[in-house]
């Protein structure tokens, strides 16, 4: 995906989310939580779009799931832990969880565990830019801009300007099996 397609994809996601939020009566209680790192920037972009569509600015927060990973003992060194920043009450909210790529589902599981430690949301929706398949847990995205068939051993990278990329891009890297 190139920059134009990513921009259109974000607008498309926002429209779907706004429609769903209105239908569910959740337009006023919507809050956005980006999963570090890529999801944080997409959350900010979605928030800008949703503010226009819903006429109100949803609160936005950040989750870092490092302390909730299920694979720490298998790693050589403890994973890097970044800040989690949720400054609004989660209780009763419709939370839009945002990540760049959905793969095994383990990150989302960890994010859900962490999120409920802040309170009990009314519901949680998951929005991703790319669903690449390869799930290891029964987790599905409510909103996905693109669904790609990507082999094991290949990597889907979402490169965003906020992370220092010259232009936005989604690229598949790594050897093909």
């Amino acid at each position, binding site marked *: 995906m190139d920059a134009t397609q990513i921009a259109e994809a974000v607008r498309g996601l926002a429209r779907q989310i706004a429609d769903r939020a209105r239908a569910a009566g959740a337009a006023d209680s919507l809050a956005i939580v980006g999963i570090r790192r890529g999801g944080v920037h997409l959350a900010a972009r979605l928030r800008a779009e949703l503010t226009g569509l819903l006429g109100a600015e949803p609160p936005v927060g950040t989750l*870092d799931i*490092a*302390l*909730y*990973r299920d694979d*720490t*003992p*298998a*790693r*050589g*060194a*403890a*994973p890097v*832990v*970044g*800040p*989690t*920043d949720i400054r609004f009450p989660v209780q009763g909210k419709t939370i839009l969880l945002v990540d760049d790529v959905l793969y095994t589902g383990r990150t989302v599981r960890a994010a859900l*565990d*962490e999120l409920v*430690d*802040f*309170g009990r949301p009314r519901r949680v929706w998951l929005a991703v830019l790319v669903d690449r398949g390869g799930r290891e847990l029964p987790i599905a995205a409510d909103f996905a801009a693109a669904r790609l068939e990507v082999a094991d051993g290949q990597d889907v990278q979402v490169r965003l300007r906020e992370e220092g990329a010259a232009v936005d891009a989604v690229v598949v890297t790594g050897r093909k099996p």
Partner: protein
Amino acid sequence: MIGRQRHCIALEDFSRDELELVLDLAVSMKEVLRRPIKKVPSLRGKSVVNLFFEASTRTRSSFEIAAKILSADALNWTSASSSVSKGETLIDTARNLEAMRPDVLVIRHSASGAPRLVADHVGCAVVSAGDGAHEHPSQGLLDCFTVRERLGTLEGKTLAIVGDVSHSRVARSDLHGFTKLGARVRMCGPPTMMPAGLAQLGCTVHTDLREAVEGADAVVMLRIQHERIGDPLIPNTREYSRLWGLNSKKAAEWLKPGALVLHPGPINRGVELSPEVADGPFSVILDQVQNGVAVRMAILYLLAGGDPAEARA
């Protein structure tokens, strides 16, 4: 692992990057302390043994809370009710505890070097919670964290450490931590409480309190140890307080606005600190206590969060 460190025994061993690794992680750990549910599962299934050969409430509780917030099992072990009273050696005690498969041993001991000795004989990670007059690395790290949190950086700042420097493990850890993070350090105390060769550790040495604290960005007031009063180091607490204690008048006249006053606790009110200063606007003493939990969470997470065997490979 904390960078190259398998243990946390002395800040003298730490590089600047390793210090900053702990301090940066402690920022995220402190956020956990503000949550409605102060518990994360990252060390689930791990165990931390607090092995205290000296009395301590604050440090032991801080390590225990840190371990429990990370979901580790914490076991407190004190020498008074143990086989040490039956003549067991330190190494035998540590080896017996290690046979119960803890992931981290946190040790406080009155003998300098005891945690290092234990680390040489066990396979798990060892954290010093203070050894003799050597070091108290987690206190040093939490002091670095507290100053950095309030002042943004230690780089280029002037920090004073005041009191019984020669017997203080906190002073030694603070000195290593502060200087490695780029601060200028002034050490101050009665001449009888200043060890020889101190200036070779990269600090300036003072016996006049005003000279040490005037213009400083932060002042660490060490605990005067009542148990030593009566030995020939100082005549009495009253004279100590007059010459090296910080009261509200001296603080108002000598400290610059925004300066921080730290104290490792427990405070001897009216000796090294007057109650007005201990509870006043300069004081960050309660911040230190909270930051201690965050810093100890970071230490435990880094040392127990990975597989040491794999990390060494």
